[in-house]
């Protein structure tokens, strides 16, 4: 684990003694890295976070931060900043007093704590709101205070559990940028939990996809998007066409694809597919209006068109399967339900997933 700053190995955790909320979860993060836990509700993201923070004890496995085992270290001695989903601001204290709290707990003299807390409020853009109580702040502002409070004591790690879930879309996107900016400025190793794949894509250096207490994939956002390891990941991250595929000629890279017939795929992918069986992932944007040189072609019988302005989603059928294609907004002009649209895709725009 070269350079691993946060190291988690083989975490197992069961709340009821029967089902495993965490089933051998292992991952690591380098110093300053922004890692996102992505997964559906109940997949074990929060549990992992709570084990890192020390609020839940794992049944097995270890957590190491900066080379030190956290076993037996109580939460208040871990020095880990946590931003909770509901912010958990102290309602009886002002924003400034909230941010001062961790400093006072560390016996920083009051005047110095106030100064440092004010600086941190300034960094999150709330310099003028120090005297307000949490209930006098908007959701986004409360979020910033919670962030300032979790960062003011120079935590070894910053953990955020679905911090933007309660905010509306515009504010959420604004806060994503803000969090990223602050995280970069302070270079703090961060674990961010979300079930929103676009949020994960936008923020992360690395995404760890959870499902059913297990890690499905741990990779960069682009890797997760372009080369998902499992169908689950392919479905969970981004829009997808998933078609059964059987390799008929590994050397030439020919596969028999459900609905599309014999198709050209990348030989290096075809050759490593176990049993020659698998699933072909075609992202909707991989299906482009057919060009003369497209090795794979099909005609989509359009049933529905969803316009987004810059692009449009065509939903239709080809060879008995339903396909989704995302094409440029201009190219989509004049296409309506009932149209027959020739489309093509290139082998390197597709991805084969082992069955």
């Amino acid at each position, binding site marked *: 684990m070269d350079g691993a700053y946060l190291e988690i190995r083989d975490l197992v955790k069961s709340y009821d003694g029967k089902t495993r909320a965490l089933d051998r979860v292992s991952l690591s993060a380098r110093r300053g890295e922004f890692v996102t836990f992505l997964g559906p509700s109940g997949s074990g993201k929060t549990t992992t976070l709570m084990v890192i923070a020390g*609020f839940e004890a794992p049944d097995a496995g270890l957590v190491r931060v900066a080379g030190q085992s956290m076993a037996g270290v109580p*939460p*208040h001695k871990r020095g880990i900043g946590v931003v909770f989903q509901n912010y958990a601001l102290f*309602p009886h204290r002002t924003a400034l007093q909230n941010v001062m709290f961790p400093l006072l*707990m560390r016996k920083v003299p009051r005047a110095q704590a106030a100064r440092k807390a004010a600086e941190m409020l300034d960094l999150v853009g709330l310099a003028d709101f120090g005297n307000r109580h949490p*209930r006098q702040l908007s959701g986004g502002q409360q979020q910033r205070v919670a962030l300032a409070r*979790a960062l003011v004591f120079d935590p070894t790690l910053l953990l955020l559990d679905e911090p933007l879930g309660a905010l509306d879309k515009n504010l959420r996107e604004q806060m994503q940028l803000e969090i990223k900016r602050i995280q970069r400025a302070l270079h703090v190793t961060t674990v961010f939990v979300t079930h929103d794949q676009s949020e994960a894509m936008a923020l992360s250096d690395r995404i760890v996809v959870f499902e059913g207490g297990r890690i499905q994939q741990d990779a960069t956002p682009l890797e997760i998007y372009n080369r998902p390891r499992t169908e689950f990941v392919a479905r969970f991250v981004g829009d997808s066409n998933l078609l059964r595929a059987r390799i008929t000629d590994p050397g030439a890279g020919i596969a028999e694809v459900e609905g599309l017939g014999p198709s050209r795929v990348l030989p290096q992918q075809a050759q490593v597919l176990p049993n020659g069986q698998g699933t072909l992932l075609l992202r909707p944007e991989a299906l482009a209006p057919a060009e003369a040189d497209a090795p794979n072609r099909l005609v989509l019988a359009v049933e529905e068109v969803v316009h987004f302005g810059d692009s449009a989603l065509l939903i239709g059928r080809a060879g008995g399967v339903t396909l989704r294609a995302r094409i440029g907004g201009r190219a989509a002009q004049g296409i309506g339900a009932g149209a027959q649209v020739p489309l093509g895709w290139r082998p390197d725009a597709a991805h084969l997933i082992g069955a």
Partner: protein
Amino acid sequence: MIALGWLVAMFVAAPLLVVIPISFSDAVSLEFPPPSWGLRYYQAYFADPRWTQPTINSLIIATAVAALTMVLVTPAAFALVRHRFGGKGAVNLLLMLPMVVPHIVIAIGYYAFLSDIGLLQSFPGVILAHTALSVPVAFLVLTASLKGFDRTLERAALSLGAAPWQAFLHVTVPVLWPGFAAAALFAFVQSFDETVVAIFVSGATTETLPRRMFDSIRMQADPVIAVVSTLLFGVVALLALAAMLRRRAGG
């Protein structure tokens, strides 16, 4: 519906509408409506140690009851809200029992029990008996506010470097403060206006205000009683109002 509501409100308030005017009467005996107005009953009340002493007794007892109740109820409420343990249902039921047992039964029980241990007619005796009556109400109030308490606040405090006792002191207690105050208030009021048990277990030197009123009306229908009623109502209403204002200010 609205008319009915007013009717009920009037019915509830009627005794006050009688008692408060009478307290400002200038008549020699209890009379309604008062023939003329004055403060003679108030003068009589404040000048007469047979009234002021029971008032002081009641204040002492109610304060002690509030304190003792909180000492008992706080750990009980935390244990019952936050932990699972065997016999939890039974403990809950026992705590609420004084609420359903008729006061006269409790009064007789305490009469026998306190005389056995030699505390009959003593301050500790009255305080103990009243505390038993105050526990259920205070427990209910505190439990309700404890259930509404967001425990992630404590987790947040821990993650920020507070030891568990610091989290309790700096976060749990201040946030739950209105709940504690309301519980103590209910305990205080419960004791301050309790009559039946006081009649049985308080004595000449520990006589409470409601008991003094009861004795007084039995013997002579002293009009000062209207003053005491008004004051009693005033204290309780003021406390209730304070609690309400606090809640509103607290958001």
